[in-house]
């Protein structure tokens, strides 16, 4: 027979005003299994809790009901108190007679009756509460960072400086991400590479950070504190530890292809580093384009390499590493295909005629049948960058001429449900203003026009920056561009100024589109790989939009930077640091404690329909082989990973044979609650 203690709280007058607590206590005391009742003014007060503990010890109670406020208020308090008194905390239940009874009813008779009913239901339920132990799990104190852009770099440095070993997995041959492409950054106009590359060097020199560049995460198993990552290290064809980064190979390499880092505005050799300050400064051979791999010819790089570190036979390596937490910082890209709306497609490169030798080498854009001089923001960044294809001179891609008139179009693809994405890309207003300044600094006599919808400059020093751009340099035209067409070697921009109501035609030498930021193409694949959720655009979803902006939907995986939503650099860095501090918080404990209210399996009766495996939102259920003591296979059964289970109970509902149960909300407990219901009104 159960020995249950029932403690009815008066909550000062809050409950006692409409509920006759003494009557509730008396009636509840008559229920079978109830061994002790109390009616007290403030159960949650220190004396109340002392009384609670004393009653447990004195009466040797094996379960307690506190009829008081909502479990959200004091369930934890009383469970803690019970634990102190030597009672399993999960043998304590709260009957909510304040929020759901005394505060919402006036009639004392009815409220008292309802309180009795609520308490009785909980008493019945408590009889089937099992004593549960919290799961304790070890934590692997190493962090994995996916993406080596500014977010990944910041998070890695923060963690490593807190003595936490970090691995960065970067898909490209070098760290740096999109920020390395930028020329100067708003609103201070400091040089992007000047602030980024020291950080990259710091990362590469840090003893606790290991960089897996030219690598991709293939699989992530496990759960918070105990992840196992499978990482594919793509073959660089260069022996990394021997390479000194002298540059002989990429300078001598006779073959060139489009340079992705320069957005295709220049060419790079086939064995290459993406940009001069690359970290690590180890070249990779682009096997798709290298003649050595296509038709087994050339091999010049191997000949010129003084260190003998070119290895054409190198294979992809797959490594497995253990981590305790993951930070996802995969970044963004610019929306592709907007050129279709604004001037045609991009054909493969053709060498333009009548160019100076230098320009021909760097700006090989075709003029055939499309508007080559319509470029996007990142391309403009490369043109304006001192390390870019033109060495910082702004020249247009088609013929290398210095553009006299430039039109900037904001909100290309953004805030456009029909052709693009619904959201605002947030940074375009600012970088367009910056572009006008960069252009003006470069081409003093040039004219620039900005077509915009609104200016959104919420940020420290941002509005001032826009004001400066508007007053000093550019002509801001509020309105949208309807059409771009070719006129001679110029681009005819047709638009409207909605302030004056006039149609506007500008003959521009170059048009720069502030294209929408979108997630990386494979973001959804990454999300599925990691088991985190994403929104309709492919941005990773945070656990809570306000209160948990860096936690992903899966415990132990955190988000940083533009993979979670559009962001500028300061926000990205802030979120990366926040994610790093979340990881530190997680790693500050030796063991993780998890609530034991997870699903458990009755293996004998599991009938292998795997409905539970299908519905589990957390992939917490696996199939396992049940063997006898001799190790012979007996049958299959479902198996719950308590590290991943969040206790939603979907599996329990879909299981027809009822062989999987959610602890804390078992069928038996709910059954007891239902059958206790009498609805007895006086």
């Amino acid at each position: 027979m159960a020995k249950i203690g029932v403690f009815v709280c008066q909550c000062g007058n809050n409950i006692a005003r409409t509920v006759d607590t003494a009557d509730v206590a008396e009636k509840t005391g008559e229920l079978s299994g109830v061994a002790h009742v109390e009616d007290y003014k403030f159960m949650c007060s220190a004396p109340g809790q002392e009384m609670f503990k004393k009653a447990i010890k004195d009466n040797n109670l094996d379960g307690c009901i506190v009829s008081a406020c909502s479990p959200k208020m004091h369930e934890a308090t009383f469970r803690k108190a019970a634990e102190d008194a030597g009672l399993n905390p999960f043998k304590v239940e709260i009957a909510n007679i304040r929020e759901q009874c005394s505060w919402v009813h006036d009639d004392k008779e009815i409220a008292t009756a309802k309180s009795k009913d609520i308490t009785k239901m909980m008493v019945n339920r408590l009889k089937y509460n099992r004593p549960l132990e919290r799961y304790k799990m070890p934590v692997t104190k190493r962090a994995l960072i996916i993406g080596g852009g500014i977010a990944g770099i910041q998070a890695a440095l923060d963690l490593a400086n807190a003595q936490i070993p970090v691995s960065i997995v970067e898909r490209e041959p070098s760290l740096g991400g999109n920020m390395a492409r930028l020329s100067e950054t708003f609103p201070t106009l400091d040089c992007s590479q000047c602030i980024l590359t020291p950080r990259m060097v710091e990362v590469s020199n840090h003893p606790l950070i290991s960089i897996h560049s030219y690598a991709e995460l293939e699989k992530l198993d496990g759960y918070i504190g105990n992840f196992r990552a499978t990482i594919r290290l793509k073959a660089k064809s260069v022996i990394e530890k021997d390479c000194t980064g002298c540059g002989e190979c990429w300078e001598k390499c006779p073959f060139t292809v489009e340079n992705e880092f320069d957005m295709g505005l220049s060419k790079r050799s086939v064995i290459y580093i993406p940009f001069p300050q690359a970290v690590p400064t180890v070249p990779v051979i682009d096997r798709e384009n290298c003649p050595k791999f296509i038709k087994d010819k050339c091999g010049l790089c191997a000949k010129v390499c003084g260190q003998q570190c070119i290895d054409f036979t190198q294979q992809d390596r797959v490594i497995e590493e253990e981590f305790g937490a993951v930070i996802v910082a995969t970044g963004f890209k610019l929306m592709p295909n907007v050129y279709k709306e604004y001037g045609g497609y991009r054909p493969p490169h053709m060498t333009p005629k009548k160019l100076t030798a230098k320009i021909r080498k760097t700006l090989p854009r075709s003029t055939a049948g499309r508007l080559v001089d319509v470029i996007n923001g990142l391309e403009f960044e490369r043109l304006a960058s001192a390390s870019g294809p033109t060495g910082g001179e702004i020249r247009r891609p088609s013929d290398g001429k210095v553009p006299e008139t430039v039109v900037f179009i904001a909100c290309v693809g953004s805030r456009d449900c029909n052709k693009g994405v619904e959201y605002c890309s947030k940074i375009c207003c600012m970088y367009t203003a910056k572009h006008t300044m960069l252009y003006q600094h470069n081409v003093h006599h040039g004219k620039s026009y900005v077509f915009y919808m609104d200016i959104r400059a919420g940020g420290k020093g941002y509005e001032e920056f826009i004001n400066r751009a508007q007053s000093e340099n550019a002509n801001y035209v509020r309105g949208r561009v309807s059409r771009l067409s070719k006129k001679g070697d110029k681009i005819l921009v047709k638009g409207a100024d909605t302030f004056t109501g006039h149609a506007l035609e500008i003959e521009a030498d170059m048009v720069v589109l502030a294209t929408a930021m979108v997630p990386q193409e494979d973001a959804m694949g990454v999300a599925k790989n990691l088991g985190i959720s994403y929104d309709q655009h492919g941005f990773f979803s945070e656990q809570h939009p306000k209160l948990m902006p860096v936690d992903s939907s899966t415990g132990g995986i955190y988000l940083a930077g533009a993979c979670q939503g559009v962001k500028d650099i300061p926000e990205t860095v802030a979120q990366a640091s926040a994610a790093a501090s979340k990881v530190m918080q997680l790693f500050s404990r030796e063991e993780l404690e998890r609530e034991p209210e997870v699903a458990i399996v009755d293996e004998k009766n599991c009938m292998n329909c795997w409905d539970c495996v299908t519905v589990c939102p957390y992939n917490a259920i696996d199939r396992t082989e049940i063997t006898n003591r001799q190790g012979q296979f007996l049958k299959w059964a479902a198996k719950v990973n308590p590290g991943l289970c969040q206790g939603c109970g979907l599996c329990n509902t879909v299981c027809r044979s009822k062989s999987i149960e959610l602890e804390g909300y078992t069928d038996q407990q709910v059954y007891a609650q239902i059958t206790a219901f009498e609805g007895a009104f006086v």
Partner: protein
Amino acid sequence: MSKKITRHDFEPKIMAFVCKWCTYSGADLAGTSRMDYSPNVRMVRLPCSGRIDPQFLIKAFEQGVDGVIVSGCHPGDCHYNEGNYYARRRNLAFRELLDFHGIDLARLEFSWISAAEAIKWTKVIDVFTDKIRELGQHREYADMTDPYAHYLVKEAA
């Protein structure tokens, strides 16, 4: 608080199966805001509307309740991401089944109530209670006699 207390001849018994993240919190908010609503409802707190097994509802009806409320987070707001979508499907099918068994669907209410919708919660309860009061006792199930009832030993009180 000034609502006039009225007594009725018939007080329906109503059971609510609710998710603890949204509806239970919404009901708590109704309490914190001192809203007044009909006292006929008893709640069973579950982690998610996806945990609400139709078996519970069958048992509740067998137990002699006059109406059942099922409530959870709005679609897309589920704490567990997708529990309420499954709940919606399951309940759609279950309602059809109950209907085909000849049980009046007016006695089974399904609603989405978020943690902020205390007013909606009180409205749902009040409207549903009035509706059930009009329908009267759930006689169909209640009248089904248990020929073995007198063999059962009553639990000693």
